[in-house]
């Protein structure tokens, strides 16, 4: 593997970790789509700053884009406060308008410069290693890597410093306000960091991958744990794994790196969605299946205990009788009989089901419970 490839993987991993850290709070605060709005709207800030300074220097760009991100958040809140439109519609109104202005400015006045929308959406990770940071005549690595690292450190520092406040404002905004932590201040601080992260990442990976990394890995982590520190760590881990696997696949199929990484966040999310221990779909479905079987088996025990010792017992105890009496399908009836026999609740002889001692006890417990 060449140095450039290793550097690309490093850059992507740093950006991924940084996005997942801040994205965790977006997911928990039900504001995931603000990342969509902000990462599109910052185009306008970048274009305007380009016209003002005529350069693509990083710092002014980051400042302008961050300002536009915060402006987006402010405009959305302003619209919501008029109570004339709901929040989802407000987001859907603001960022397309800002993005449109950006696109029009580019195509009218900057069609010949290096600022095309393709690059904004997808980034140019392949070229990132060529832009080196030279300090005192020494080459210390790609600029994007250092930029990503700085933003990652800022995000981490913010979360560590204001961990308690963030946690409180995220899970109980009412209590946070009552205790004197301004929810508005925390909201804007968080949104500023989302903007900074989005803009510093998007030159490398593009706005779509920024959204994917901010939402996908934290959402997968949310299915795996109930504890915030674990969720933060898992989100970072899954984001880095997505980035690395995504790069390898892009290399194999010779396709878009950002597209492949975004795809991997989706693949990882779907895997977690399926197999997560408690909240995954498979465990959920098997739990539902088990509960249904449990309930049906208990009904069977009650049925048997009602008829035990009665003249009609010979007819009622038949396995074949269950399909008619309970309207169970044959496979389901067989499953329930198996379920009850495994637990030693019933025994079968000549197609007739009888309660065991344990089964009698369970049946009487069930009847008392209801």
């Amino acid at each position: 593997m060449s140095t450039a490839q290793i550097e690309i993987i490093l850059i992507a991993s740093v950006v991924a970790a940084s996005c997942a850290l801040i994205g965790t709070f977006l997911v928990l605060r039900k504001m995931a789509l603000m990342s969509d709005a902000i990462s599109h709207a910052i185009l306008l800030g970048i274009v305007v700053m380009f016209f003002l300074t005529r350069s693509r220097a990083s710092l002014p760009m980051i400042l302008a884009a961050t300002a536009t991100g915060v402006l987006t958040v402010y405009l959305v809140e302003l619209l919501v406060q008029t109570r004339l439109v709901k929040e989802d519609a407000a987001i859907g109104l603001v960022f397309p308008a800002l993005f449109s202005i950006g696109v029009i400015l580019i195509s009218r006045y900057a069609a010949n410069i290096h600022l095309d929308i393709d690059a904004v959406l997808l980034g140019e990770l392949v070229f990132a290693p060529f832009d080196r940071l030279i300090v005192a005549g020494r080459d210390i690595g790609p600029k994007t890597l250092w930029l990503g690292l700085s933003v990652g450190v800022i995000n981490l520092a913010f979360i560590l410093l204001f961990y308690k406040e963030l946690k409180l404002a995220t899970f109980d905004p009412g209590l946070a306000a009552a205790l004197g932590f301004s929810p508005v201040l925390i909201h804007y601080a968080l949104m500023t960091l989302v903007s900074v992260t989005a803009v510093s990442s998007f030159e490398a990976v593009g706005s779509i991958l920024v959204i994917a990394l901010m939402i996908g890995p934290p959402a997968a982590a949310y299915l795996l744990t109930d504890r915030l520190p674990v969720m933060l760590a898992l989100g970072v881990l899954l984001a880095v794994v997505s980035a690395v696997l995504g790069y390898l696949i892009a290399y194999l199929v010779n396709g878009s790196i950002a597209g492949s990484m975004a795809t991997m966040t989706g693949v990882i999310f779907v895997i977690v969605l399926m197999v997560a221990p408690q909240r995954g779909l498979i465990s959920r479905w098997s739990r539902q299946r088990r509960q249904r079987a449990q309930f049906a088996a208990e009904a069977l025990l009650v049925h048997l205990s009602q008829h035990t010792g009665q003249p009609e017992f010979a007819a009622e105890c038949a396995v074949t009788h269950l399909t008619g009496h309970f309207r169970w399908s044959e496979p389901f009836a067989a499953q329930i009989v198996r379920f009850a026999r495994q637990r030693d609740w019933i025994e079968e002889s000549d197609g007739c089901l009888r309660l065991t001692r344990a089964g009698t006890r369970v049946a009487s417990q069930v009847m008392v419970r209801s």
Partner: protein
Amino acid sequence: MNLGQILHDLLFDYTLRTVAMGSAALGLVSGVLGAFAVLRRQSLLGDAISHAALPGVALAFLLTMSRAPLVLVLGATLSGWLGTLFVITVTRQTRIKQDTALGIVLSVFFGFGMLLLSIIQRMPTASKAGLDKFLFGQAATLMSRDVVTTAALGAAALLVVLLLWKEFKLLSFDPAFMKSVGYPVRRLDILLTTLMVIAIVIGLQTVGVVLMSAMLVAPAAAARQWTDKLGRMVLLSGGFGALVGVLGAVTSAQVGRLPTGPTIVLYVSGIVVVSLLAAPDRGIVAQLRRRRRQRVQFAAEALAIHLLNHEGAPDAAVETAIAHLRQHLQWDESFAERVTRRTITSGLAERSNGHLRLTSYGREVARRAMAR
């Protein structure tokens, strides 16, 4: 260029007529279906669906090697629909909220689409030309076969809305009641969402993935301000959509280097701003005026009470002087003047050489206000 020339071109210039008709049809359909989306708080579902359509376009092309609009639109519809299904499943079956599910679909499907497009681009036999107009939209390249596809699909969608009007209305406002009286709510929900997918997919070629959501949300959000009736809102929203479609197409044809999609979005955003400000009753200006009128009315009643309190008292001559009111009630000059005028015009008091005197009606109003 004058208006007559533009009208002439609109009717007789083949390219402009095609683009304008396509944009108008798209605006109409997305306006109508967007009205339901906004009312059902699904504004951002449109954003997710439009991004989710991209891999479908690429896959349809990879499988058939055809650029026929119908093939690509079919692929887009299928993958847009799949994205919606994913959002519904994840939000129903897990604790993940809708915004997160939408965000995942939006970015992952789109990323996958870009991956496919980059592969297509490197294939020796094919280029992605014609496919990437789904990305940013290129109304200027609309051809009559595109417009025919748009119009046919759009007309079918509008027909379904017309036929199931009552059902969709109920679905938008009271799905719980609807379920209780035995309608197949889930199936209707899926049908309405499918119509939205169709509206989005036919719009993609004109305005592109990123801006398509605005075509759903903005006309509807503007229309909502002008009326409380669903029928009027839907008509108005469709009308706004069609209008901005034509306006955007004409403007970008007249002015050089002005992409159609963003131009349409700016027009419709303008309509939203005007609607929010100027709509009667709900609009911000109307709200402010109503609040001001209420404040003056309240002050006029307070003034009537003040006059009643001092009527016949020894200090009446001082207290009822118009000049005194400003100090006594601490009103600024213009407000005091407005209140005085309102007191007189609404018959609460009369002016007699620099003093205010309650009328019998004013006395009654003041007494009633105090009893209240």
